[in-house]
């Protein structure tokens, strides 16, 4: 139904306050092949497990941030502003991205 997401600014809030931005992708810029371009535009990992993805705190501070979410359980392992990836946790559960 819903779950909590910890906004790096505002703390834990209902998921309904947020907009989903999809899994992180590798942008195909100038010089990339057509295969790389279509891969970036139309294909996704669609992981069953841990996934790093974009979220926007739409009804709050309007910050875009990254979240590591388990797509089956909706458990969120951590959230952080882009560019500040925390060191990979040695205790991270199996299947960590």
């Amino acid at each position: 139904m819903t779950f909590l997401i910890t906004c790096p600014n505002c703390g834990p809030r209902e998921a309904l306050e947020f907009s989903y931005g999809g899994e992180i992708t590798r942008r195909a810029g100038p010089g990339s092949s057509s295969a790389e371009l279509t891969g970036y535009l139309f294909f996704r990992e669609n992981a069953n497990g841990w996934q790093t993805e974009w979220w926007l705190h739409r009804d709050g501070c309007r910050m875009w941030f990254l979240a590591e979410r388990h797509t089956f359980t909706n458990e969120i392992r951590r959230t952080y502003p882009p560019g500040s990836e925390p060191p990979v946790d040695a205790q991270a559960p199996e299947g960590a991205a």
Partner: protein
Amino acid sequence: MSGRLPARPGEAIDRGRPLTIDFEGRRAPAFEGDTVGSALAAAGVTITGRSFKYHRPRGLMCMTGACPNCLMQIDGIPNVRSCTEPVREGMRVERQNAWPSVDRDVHGVLDSFSFMMPPGFYYKVFQRPRWAWSKVEPIIRKQAGLGKVPRTEDHEPREVVNLHADVAVIGGGLAGLAAAAEAAAAGASTVLLEQRREAGGRALGSADDVDRARLVAEAEASGARILLGTAAFGVFDGPVVAAVGGGGLQRIRARHLVFATGAVEQPAVFPNNDLPGVMLSSAVELLVNRFRVLPGRRAVVLTSNQDGYRAARTLRDAGADVFVVDLRAGAGSADGLRVIPGSTILSAKGRRGVTAVSVGAPGSATGQSIPCDLVVLAGFSAPSTNLLAMTGAKLGFDDDAQAFLPVELPPDVHAVGAVAGARTVQGAIAQGRLAGLEAAAAVGQEPPGAAGRMEVLRAQAAERGDPVVLPPEVATGEGKQFACLCMDVTSKELKAAAAEGFDSMELLKRYTTVSMGPCQGKACMLSAQRLCARAAGSSFAETRPTTARPPWTPVELGALAGWRRTPRKETTIHDLHADSGATFMWAGDWRRPHHFATPEQEVEAVRHRVGVIDVSTLGKFRVKGPEAVELLERLYPNRFGDLAVGRVRYGAMLNDEGVILDDGAVCRVGDDEFFVTVTTGNTAALERWITWWLADWRLDVRVLNVTGAFAALNLAGPDSRKVMSVLTDADVSSEAVKYMSASSFEVAGVPSLVLRIGFVGELGYEIHFPSMYGEHVWRAVMEAGRPFGIVPFGLEAQRVLRLEKQHILVGQDTDAESDPFEVGLGWMVKADKPDFLGRRALEDLAEAGPKERLVGFTCDPSWLPPEGASVVHEGVWVGRVTSARRSAAARSVVGLAWVPAGWAEDDTEIEIQFGGAHAKAKVALKPFYDPEGARLRS
């Protein structure tokens, strides 16, 4: 049977406050504190409804909202459980599912035709001949369903409330009250949900109210938040408990969940076990002890434990003649009750109510007939494990309890009381207290001395009570034996279905609809499981209940839908538009004037004199920071590095597919500051888009959505400069305020940003200013423009004006595949820039060249093609019209259409078609009005 018993302490009714309800046109007396069911019982109403399929008479059975027998239409709302619905003065109560009346229902003849409705009859009957189905279906549809859907719209405000707590207790019986009291007293924030309007659960009907009163007082004093009339109906991811009550949907998120959902008393299966007058002991105790109504004078109580003796004593003390039929051989009574040991009820007799039962040893063909008007089924129950199972709790069969009980709970989930197998009051209370203390301790609120108390409670909590003896199956006898009262499924039908191979609970449920009715298995799961086990030749222990799914209790759709609200935005000048008689239209969430006078008059004024339109709804962004230029260079295909301060450039944003997302003005208002406008309906999406890329690129820029902060007017027309010169002291000559410039000066005394741009194709000024001055500036503009014949214009006139200039509307003229080359915006793509959104895709698109083009067209004004009309060639669809309007300036219909790229040449003849109408049209690549743009630049 009617009237009330003498008053007693602890009764629920307030005899000092009588009221009247309207029962099918008759006035029925009631007291404050009554439920509809208790008031009708006091008034002598024994038939509370007709059954779903066979239209058999049914009466009050559970009094706890667990069975389908008393569903009524109350104040127009169908399927209200009347047994728990509190009375209100003047409420209109009608019984359901009968014609002409419940007392004389002609559909009752269906009962004699049940041989035509075998299990799975939906799948078997009406297969052939196929044509017959269309004749039969309307009749079946009319027969099917319960209650009448109200024809009026529901305007009740319904909130969605999110509750957060350390501990949530589901169920306010004794165990739940004890858990909530302990957790809250220890300092944990605690919420208790109880579906009924009074806490106490099974103890509510008890003649001795001591335990209940003490625990309610303790829970109230503990500081726990007690939500009465709030029914939990599901447990979802999170976990989140969803409940209805308190005027809407409650979503409860707690660190610990304590399930004290109790058990539901179950009927026994024997011929005619559905007759009015066959009741569960909960109903009898509530009616007698709480509502002071005696439901029968000659009662037979079927039981195998103390519950039956308690009910029998209650009835005896109220003046009834009572027999106890005890399944246990050697049973007897210490206080003089007449007990028939080692026996069961073999059948019941009666037409509109029970008149006698046959009692004998299990398995015997005949028994002793005992005349009676009340049969009480006491002490058979099924734990309410459904909500618990939704958390992922595992259930296992318990021989002593003859029930599936939780054997493995997820972390931070507790089960206490009857749902956990407690069969004594003291055991249930101890389990509740223990769970409350454990949950509080787990959230860091362990009270001093808790360890010692928990030790004692653990010992008490282990107390289970006597093993359960369930009634045996009755093999023979005349009359239907109902397993499922909601859907009218009999034991015979279950056996037949099992014989056909549907021999597991999940299959039986789907095939026979057993447990699919309003009660969702509350009053039938036990019978269905045991019958299924026997029919399939397995044991009860091997026959698991069906998968638990929400909703566990009935939920009105309105509660899930929430409050019906439509967002609506108005500009700060809205009221003035309304005063001027504007006709409004929706533009996204905004209300905007469609026209004031007529669109034709407004167009004429703008083209020849001057007009003004409120464009406050435009999306506006302030982009500021050392890397502002870099951000815009990446967001747009245009170049902005060379844009001088005080200049404006038209730009379009693309996504990485090269598709146009939006267009608008980009104004450089400082070295590191820009003012950007976007399309009204796209503002929120573009804010997300821009800030998302900014987050990814991490440039040193701030982007602020200032849409609401600034109002904006577009003053346009050949006389607009004259009007501007009245409004400001600033020099507004064509040398001082050039075309495509952005200047800051005061307009009507208000600091404004004035953009000399012209969406409508005339000399014009887009004036942005703080929105609080909206009315003031609008009035000043109208005043200054009066000598020049100024008119306000609406969206329709603007659409005609822009179409005459072939200015596109993104989203109207373009779609999710339109790239800039196709719509004639290839000029803005600066392929020499290192990168921008869409650059890589545009490389391929530029190389392939457009397959389709958006072009202007003119056609004969005798027919106005609708938007979406087809462009055809030799009868084949080749394109479509996206915009078309009658143009006075062009003296024809003008429009925009998608056509094959090869046709994008002036004067190419195309054919437009819609329905039966069609017209010849000519492609025109240049604007229909002022193609060189001289008027814009003047």
